[in-house]
């Protein structure tokens, strides 16, 4: 199913070679704690990046800087030709283009699944309600839960909720999708249904940044794997090289721990 043309902007809007996300000399502190140290990263359109690393390494913080859920103190972040500054208009413009999926789903419990999906298109994109609902149903079908449209999030399983959350983000027709440990809060048997949706999305040509410990997903779909430790990017490589021929000792240790069981 599905196809690249549900997201024409991502496929055609960007010129080849021009990065869609450009991060230069990024530094961030939480109080005295130096959480991101001199991050340089550039991501091309349609590139799929998996970020892994031990907890506290700053990987979530890094992707949360990209849509300004966290403020950075030093360096530049340019998303889709818009630089993130304190300018609220720029932040809003970037947030319209960047979808995000959270570890804890963060669906709105007082709204039905369909309302969750249509809220932002209607209020932020000013899409007519009928149109927004039609597109939302299309996406709910794509994540294989159209029959749950009238239910409330509290009545769904974790895996279903996360698939709704993905559909909800896609309803805004984003160019870039950020995933912050999307399967970490799920029971093992539900992880697959969410990963299937993400694989499908990756194959459609979406630019994706995924923080995850699902190494199977990384080797299957990622163009690049980034390993972070103590706020720094330690290693960046293709999945093949990353898993079979890790360069740094820290990466080797991490991989041996994560793959040992």
């Amino acid at each position, binding site marked *: 199913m599905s196809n690249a043309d549900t997201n024409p902007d991502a496929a055609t809007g960007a010129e080849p070679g021009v990065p869609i996300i450009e991060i230069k000399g990024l530094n961030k502190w939480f109080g005295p704690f130096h959480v991101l140290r001199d991050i340089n990263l550039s991501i091309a359109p349609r590139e799929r990046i998996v970020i892994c690393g031990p907890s506290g390494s700053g990987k979530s913080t890094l992707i949360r800087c990209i849509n300004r859920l966290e403020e950075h103190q030093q360096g530049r972040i340019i998303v889709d030709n818009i630089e993130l500054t304190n300018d609220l208009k720029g932040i*809003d413009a970037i947030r319209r283009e960047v979808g995000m999926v959270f570890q804890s789903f963060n669906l709105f419990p007082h709204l039905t699944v369909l309302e969750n999906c249509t809220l932002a298109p209607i209020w932020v994109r000013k899409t007519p309600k009928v149109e927004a609902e039609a597109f939302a149903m299309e996406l709910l079908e794509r994540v294989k839960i159209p029959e749950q449209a009238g239910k409330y999030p*509290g009545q769904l399983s974790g895996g279903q909720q996360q698939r709704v959350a993905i559909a909800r983000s896609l309803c805004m027709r984003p160019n870039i999708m950020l995933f912050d440990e999307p399967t970490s809060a799920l029971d093992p048997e539900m992880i697959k249904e969410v990963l299937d949706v993400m694989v499908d999305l990756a194959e459609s040509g979406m630019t994706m940044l995924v923080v995850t410990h699902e190494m199977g997903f990384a080797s299957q779909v990622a163009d690049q794997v980034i390993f972070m430790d103590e706020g720094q990017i330690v290693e960046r490589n293709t999945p093949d090289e990353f898993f079979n021929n890790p360069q740094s000792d820290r990466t080797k240790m991490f991989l041996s721990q994560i793959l040992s069981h």
Partner: protein
Amino acid sequence: MTDQPFHRQQSELLPQQPAPATTVGIVGWLRTNLFSGWFNTVVTLIVLYLVWFVLTSIVDWAIINAHVSGTDRFACTSDGACWAWFDQRIHQFLYGFYPSDETWRINIAFVLLFPALAPWMFENVPGARYLRWFSLAYPIIATILLTGGLGLSVVDTDRLGGFTLNLTVGLAGIVLSLPFGIVLALGRQSRLPVIRIFSIGFIEAVRGVPLITLLFVSNIILPIFLPPNVALDTVVRVIVMVTAFASAYMAEVIRGGLQAIPRGQYEAAQAMGLSYWQMMRLIVLPQALKISIPGIVNTFIGLFKDTTLVIVIGLFDILGIANSMVANPDWLGLSTETYVVVALFFFSVCFSMSRYSIHLERKLDTTTR
């Protein structure tokens, strides 16, 4: 001994039989819940006797031995309640000192209240869209009906009294204190120091003073905030003070609700590009207010009962009228009857609010539907 086998043999299944009468229906329920064992049986009997005793005493006093006719206290000769004053005084209980040939205006205002409230309180009200516009106009309509204008003769607000006054002040306070409370609760969390300090200052100052004190000093405080030569009507003054008082409590109740909303809800709303006000209106407040319903209604009920305090600035609400009635030599010594009636008025309104809040909580519960 015989050589019969110890157990009975049976080739066919027995047909199903209804459960024993002692385990089903009313008898079964009584057995399992009230008479299961000697201790429970004794307790049940004692409680039944107490209930019987109290109920019969009340019925005896209020109905069987009561006197309902007569022109003064001495018409009542028995031990029971004396309701003879009721038809003479009910008018004052309801309308205070409102001119008797104008009370139809209060009645109309009261009847119109229901279509004004219905579209906000219940789903599927026919014509809700138009009724909402009517609701917005209702305060103006009610004010004109109660105080005059547009061809209606003018009635001074100090003639408002009785339950009309309680309802007027109570409803105005309830309707106004909710939005003010929301604004104060949001202001208290604002990033802008001016707004935050003002909100905290207002909440703490108003909450730290008894309402009765606020009412006493309202004629000193309020003119400070008003241009000179503007004299505030007494009833308006009461409404302002009661609203301010209830808003401060409301703000704290709603703040509790706001703090219960997980950070992820804010983040999801922000990540979608919602503006601050969209996020608050569409995501945060609906959830926070839902959580706060018990506290909000609690504040409403407290506010409604506090309307009796208007007595300290010379207005006669239903309790004030009752006080003067008890002091009337014709009906001396009937304080029990009088205050029971006043209590019933308040109880019916407050209990309705409480039931409505439970209905609302069930309706908004999205986890079990």
